[in-house]
């Protein structure tokens, strides 16, 4: 990761794009902008940013679709920018693979904090490795292998797995996970955790519909167990 994080902002409204670019640049980010999803995807291939800020309502292919297309090949962190905080949109956004979302009108500081939190998830930490059944988590290399095969995890998924693996057998509440992984304040949206757990299960579990590693603890949250 370069010392100055580079962002790709995909936003169709000129005023918002200009204003956010101004604001984010002042916060110390390098910002590339695109006005449509198609342009954004093209730009993404040319220069590889560290993170994508993606508006949901775009002409042509919408933000959800852009998000899905990126996720097909890439584990880049994505923050959705949504004017529609209707709950169904948030759910769709999270299911399409976004790491976090902010609701318009967004404060530049909030967006910056979210961006930094997402970027921190990819930072390496000097530590050992842990094994859970066929799953091996190498904390120093920041890689996860399942049956010896590398798993492509987004930084958020990786961070969630790391936080869970740090306390094996201990249930973590959604609010705890939101603070640890997303660095949200006390009002984090617990659906972020649920959506991320689903995605993580799809990658690490043998049978995602009957998880043996990441278990749901009813009324509390989630827990990472070594399979019996």
């Amino acid at each position, binding site marked *: 990761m370069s010392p100055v994080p580079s962002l790709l902002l995909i936003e169709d*409204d000129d*005023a*918002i794009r*200009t*204003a*956010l670019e*101004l*604001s984010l640049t*002042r916060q110390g980010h390098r910002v590339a902008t695109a006005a449509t999803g198609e342009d954004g995807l093209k730009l993404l291939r040319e220069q590889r940013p560290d993170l994508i800020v993606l508006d949901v309502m775009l002409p042509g292919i919408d933000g959800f679709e852009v998000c*899905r297309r990126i*996720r*097909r*090949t890439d*584990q880049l962190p994505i923050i959705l920018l949504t*004017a*529609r*905080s*209707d*709950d*169904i949109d948030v759910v769709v956004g999270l*299911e*399409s*693979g976004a790491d976090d979302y902010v609701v*318009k*009108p*967004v*404060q*530049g*500081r909030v967006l910056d904090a979210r961006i930094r939190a997402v970027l921190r998830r990819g930072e390496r930490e000097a530590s050992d490795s842990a094994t859970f059944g066929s799953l091996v988590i190498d904390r120093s290399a920041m890689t996860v292998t399942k049956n010896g*095969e*590398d798993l*492509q995890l987004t930084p958020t998924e990786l961070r969630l797995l790391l936080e869970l693996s740090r306390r094996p057998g201990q249930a973590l*509440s*959604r*609010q705890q996970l939101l603070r640890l992984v997303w660095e949200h*304040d*006390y*009002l984090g*949206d*617990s*659906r972020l955790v*649920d*959506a991320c*757990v*689903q*995605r993580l*299960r*799809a*990658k690490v579990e043998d049978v*995602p*519909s009957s*998880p043996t590693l990441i278990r*749901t603890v*009813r*009324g*509390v949250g989630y827990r990472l167990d070594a399979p019996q």
Partner: protein
Amino acid sequence: MTDQQGGVRGWAAGRKGALSRLRFTSLRLRLVVVFGLVALTAAVSASGIAYWLNREAVLTRTQEAVLRDFRQEMHNRAGSLPAHPTQDELQRTAGQMASSSQRFSVLLVAEDATGRTVYGNSGGLNGFELEDVPKTLRAAVIRQQDVTDGNKSPYHLYWQRIVDHGTPYLVAGTKVIGGGPTGYMMKSLEPEAKDLNSLAWSLGIATGLALIGSALLAQAAATTVLKPVHRLGVAASRLGEGKLDTRLRVSGTDELADLSRTFNNAAEALEKRVAEMAARDEASRRFVADMSHELRTPLTAITAVTEVLEEELDSEAGGIDPMIEPAVRLVVSETRRLNNLVENLMEVTRFDAGTARLVLDDVDIADQITACIDARAWLDAVDLDAERGIHARLDPRRLDVILANLIGNALKHGGSPVRVSVRETEDELVIQVQDHGPGIPEDVLPHVFDRFYKASASRPRSDGSGLGLSIAMENAHIHGGEITAANSPEGGAVFTLRLPRDTSPLTEDPEDRAEKDKGSGDGAQGETP
């Protein structure tokens, strides 16, 4: 009255469902009574007149025949007796007279040669004696009248009807003119009485039948009238319940059909009006929703830029001309207000459109309240009375909105310290927010949760959007809870929030959702090796 009604109802219910609507004041009963009275009057008067005419006709005919016979017999037989007949002669003549076709009993009275009164009896009717003849009749018979132009005979034939031991009799008597014997006759009218009796019975039965018929007719008439009335009543109450598509089937051309038609027209007009109003309401709500959506786009740009300006203001370097600094500050603060207003408007439109959803989580209430007041730097102004360890399953973001609005409102109008206390009952969570201000005027109290309600027009513009308490209330409602506002006896306003401890039944369980939708993540990302 009520007792009677109840009694009748009970009786009716025990019998027939159709009669259950029978009340003393009901139209049905009134119709039956009126029909019955009319039928009774008609039948009784008709029967009475018929009976009376029949009776007279029968009796007169019988009587005339008997009297004519008697007169003839007296003339033929008694008149041919000697002036002073013997007992035997008298007896024989009486027997002969009695054997006529009319079968009456005869009593002849005369004086024999020695001046002794002798009686001749026909023997029928248990011995017809002079005592059986009423005295008045006897007196009339033997009274000799003056012969004038208008009255050609000194004696006349007199008759009377008597009843002896329940049997009617015709008694008549006359005296043979010229010193003949006095003759009396007695004829039983029993056969005629029997005939008349059976006639009376028939007429009575006919009257009864007419009454029953009239009652049935009245029922039928009442049903034809009351059924549409009942249908109308049912339809009206359905309309009242809000089923505006209720219509009546119109049949016939009578007044009730007119009434049904009028009802249908009224219902149609009402439905149209309500639909129009709903559409207008919907349109205005959509307008507010669209407007707040539209406001967001420029606001997002403005907000982002304002922050840049704000940082300039705060920077030590003093990058902004002091002349325009107040203007920049105003833009910054008003942008923040506009942001809040739009945010609240969005929230309200979500509630109005019914798209607001709960995102449930298990939270420690004390932690949640502490975080809420901490995040807003209210820790010094709020006196929190809550033990940790009270857990509830609810939407933490919405609880935060409620608390922030209630506490913020208390701080604004009541001033610090604001006291927040948490209690829990078996299935409810009760959070009280109490301030030490002047309280809420009684006339404002019912309106504190109204949107944009300002206690008085002259009141200075407050910082709030005017939607805070209304949003708090909506957020309580979506949890199945409630907020009440009151004034505390020791002064100050008290807002009491009651929330069910487990809101899960109101929404989809997020854990179930996570379990259920696991597969959907696959499609989006695939398992990239």
